[in-house]
């Protein structure tokens, strides 16, 4: 079953008989023989299966990821985390801020309450239910990760997209714009991420928003460079030239051709940034720039608060730490396997 017809105009079915056919077949009428042949061929080629329709690179990547244990582990972790985060108020048995058991815990005397029937993960240093705090904390943590990533993604994409588009299509003037934007990005890159975050946090004052903005800003140059790099490499591809040859406007080429094709690495990076954001947020909390509001427990804050009790009640620190590590691991695994799945080198 050829997918390509021959362009030979004389190749009209049934024009002449088939030469050299053996005697046995001569008895069967020609058209029947032909039909049988077609059927048989179709049958033989049938099991090869169709390549799938309307699928793109993403779909293919998805297919590949479905077979990767790394991707599956990552996806399961992330899915679990997201489900917990979304439904946390339903899952948490108690209010995360209720100090209902406040008189049972004495941090000043080193007396803590471990896991027990009513409190599966025990109580924290102020007599709050650790399990509920972990569950509700997942939501805050997810929020931090997502918003920080969006901040970095959004501004990074604008900067990088601008630079990339200008560099590829803007001619001489565009290269100047690209140059200027890149200088700014270089400047941001040269500034140590954590210090950048710390100063941002100090500027805005400690809060959840601060952490999200600080972590997000620190990611801007990474996204920007990535997108710019991808756009420039895509911009040198022949399909861009083809679009230009069609007479498509430059702005449209940048937006509908180059940009969508450059988003792959950026999307991969977003997944990885989610992990980074969660870890960086924890670091900021450790430095005292985390969420001040006890009403919204967040793992990073919980971890940094619990460090004080690490030797007497290690579990207070270990639960949120594990939460952070596992979640970050989930996103990293997912991102890495996505990267692998999208890698043109690994694609046939």
């Amino acid at each position: 079953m050829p997918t390509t017809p021959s362009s030979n105009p004389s190749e009209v079915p049934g024009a002449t008989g088939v030469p050299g056919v053996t005697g046995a077949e001569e008895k069967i009428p020609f058209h029947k023989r032909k039909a049988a042949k077609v059927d048989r061929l179709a049958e033989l080629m049938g099991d090869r299966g169709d390549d799938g329709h309307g699928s793109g690179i993403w779909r293919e990547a998805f297919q590949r990821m479905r077979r990767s244990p790394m991707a599956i582990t990552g996806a399961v972790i992330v899915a679990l985390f997201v489900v917990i985060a979304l439904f946390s108020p339903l899952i948490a048995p108690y209010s995360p801020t209720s100090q209902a058991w406040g008189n049972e815990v004495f941090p000043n005397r080193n007396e803590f309450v471990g896991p027990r029937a009513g409190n599966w993960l025990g109580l924290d240093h102020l007599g709050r239910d650790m399990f509920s705090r972990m569950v509700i904390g997942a939501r805050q943590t997810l929020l931090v990760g997502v918003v920080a990533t969006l901040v970095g993604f959004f501004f990074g994409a604008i900067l990088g997209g601008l630079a990339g588009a200008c560099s590829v299509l803007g001619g001489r003037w565009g290269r100047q714009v690209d140059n200027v934007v890149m200088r700014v990005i270089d400047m941001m890159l040269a500034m140590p991420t954590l210090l950048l975050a710390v100063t941002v946090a100090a500027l805005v004052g400690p809060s959840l928003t601060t952490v999200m903005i600080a972590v997000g800003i620190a990611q801007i140059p990474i996204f920007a460079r990535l997108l710019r790099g991808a756009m420039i490499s895509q911009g040198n591809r022949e399909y861009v030239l083809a679009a230009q040859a069609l007479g498509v406007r430059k702005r449209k080429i940048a937006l509908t051709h180059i940009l969508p094709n450059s988003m792959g690495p950026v999307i991969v990076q977003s997944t990885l940034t989610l992990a980074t954001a969660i870890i960086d947020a924890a670091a900021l909390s450790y430095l005292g720039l985390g969420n001040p509001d006890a009403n919204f427990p967040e793992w990073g804050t919980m971890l940094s608060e619990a460090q004080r009790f690490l030797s007497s009640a290690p579990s207070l620190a270990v639960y949120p730490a594990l939460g952070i590590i596992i979640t970050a691991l989930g996103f990293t695994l997912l991102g890495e396997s996505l990267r692998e799945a999208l890698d043109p080198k690994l694609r046939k």
Partner: protein
Amino acid sequence: ESDRGGAGGGDEQPFVFASAGDIASLDPFLATDGETFRYSRQVFETLLEHESGGSEIVGGLAETWDQSEDGTVWTFGLRDGVEFHDGDELNAEAVCANFDRWFNLTGAYQSSNNSYYWQKIFGGFAENDEDHAPPEPRFVSCDAEDELTVVIEVSEYSSLYPGGFSLAAFGIMSPSSLEAMEGQEIGGEEGNPTLPEYSQVPGTVAGTGPFTVEEWNQDQSEITFNRFDGYWGDPAGFETMIIRAIPDENARRQALEANDIHGYDLVAPADVAPLQDAGFEVPTRDVFNVLYLAYQQDHEALADLEVREALAHAVNRQRIVDTILPEGGEVATQFHPDTLDGWSPNVREFEYDSELAQEKLADAGYEDLEIEFCYPTEVTRPYMPAPKDIFDVITEDLQEAGVTVEATSYEWAEYINQTDSGNCPLYLLGWTGDYNDAYNFIGTWFAGPSSAWGVDDEELFDKMAEVSGNPDEEERVAGYQELNEMVMDILPGLPISSSPPSIAFSGDVNPPNVSPLTQENFAEASWK
């Protein structure tokens, strides 16, 4: 393991103490921070001091002191036979040389962070430099009446005296070192002061204290002391002592546990019991501080006394004391620790009663009170060991009483700014006394209108001025008691607790007497 690190120095291993930060200068006069004063107390002595382990003022370099009737002339009888580290002898002229130097400082020395305590106690200078805007001078003169008698005159009486004479900033230095410092200015251009060399490199400054400064290693934030054998009192228990900075509270504890250090200050309450259990010496200081919850009365609801009372009833202060503060702390009934004269047993008290609080709020028409509540991050203060925990507990209590709390946190520097400017309706703050005088507490807060409190009570302010200006000690104390009662009626805030800050030592060490003013004399400590 007792010879770890013993390779250097003498034959005895050095005693290593961890502070929270490096010192700022070798000359305490230029400093404002506790770490510098901790260092300077080992090296320099002041005219007056506090009793070992207490807050009573006792003689230091002066054995006797007297004030004139109007309290403006102070006469000190110096201790005989006191020798400076550089061999100079202590006499009245030496003391006056110090005071004269201070009074005649010029230029950047007059900047408020280079002569903060001078300006606070003695006002401005002989010639005030407008650039730095120091206040009017209060110091008049220092005269050596005879070899061992010093007469210091001030322009007006203040309850700052005689306590002010005990401030570590006024450690007396030897005449030779003063000479050597002469002409050493605070350098750098405007806005970029660099401290003079004598305050950075050991060798110039010489005091009379039990230790001499051997070395200040700035890259390690480490200062090394040697025993001063010519000390007039009991010689120091350690031959060598090192104070090194570990800013992080957990790191300090872990370093002690790992035996990298032999003592540290600012022990977290949570660590006290475990450390004691593990065989460390964790003596508890006497209480000399107050932690309070301030009600900023520019806030509409807080201007209502009933609301303030309601909030006072809403907070379960006992729980804070029981679960968060170190053992030995207690609920404060007034803005004044009970270890200090002027404490009144008769102040109005507020029981924890959430329902009553709710009722009162309802009466005042604030059932749905929403209020911002600030706390500082990244600090522990002796009176406030875990700000966030305390904040969380209070928040929970307030919410129990139906108040909706909006949490805000600031870093310490910003926190002071915000609370000072009255931007926080509710906030946590406190004070540790510098010396034994009630004015050092309530006077700091309620001597006049301030945006920190938003209190505007002329009667209170007048009374404060009157009492504090009274040179008669007994009358003054009675006055302070009344004032305390008055304050608790006005209820500008809720005193929460007075809690004893702890200091920890290795089990091998006989700790010094611990001081409520956190002014330990490490000469008293020794190896077991």
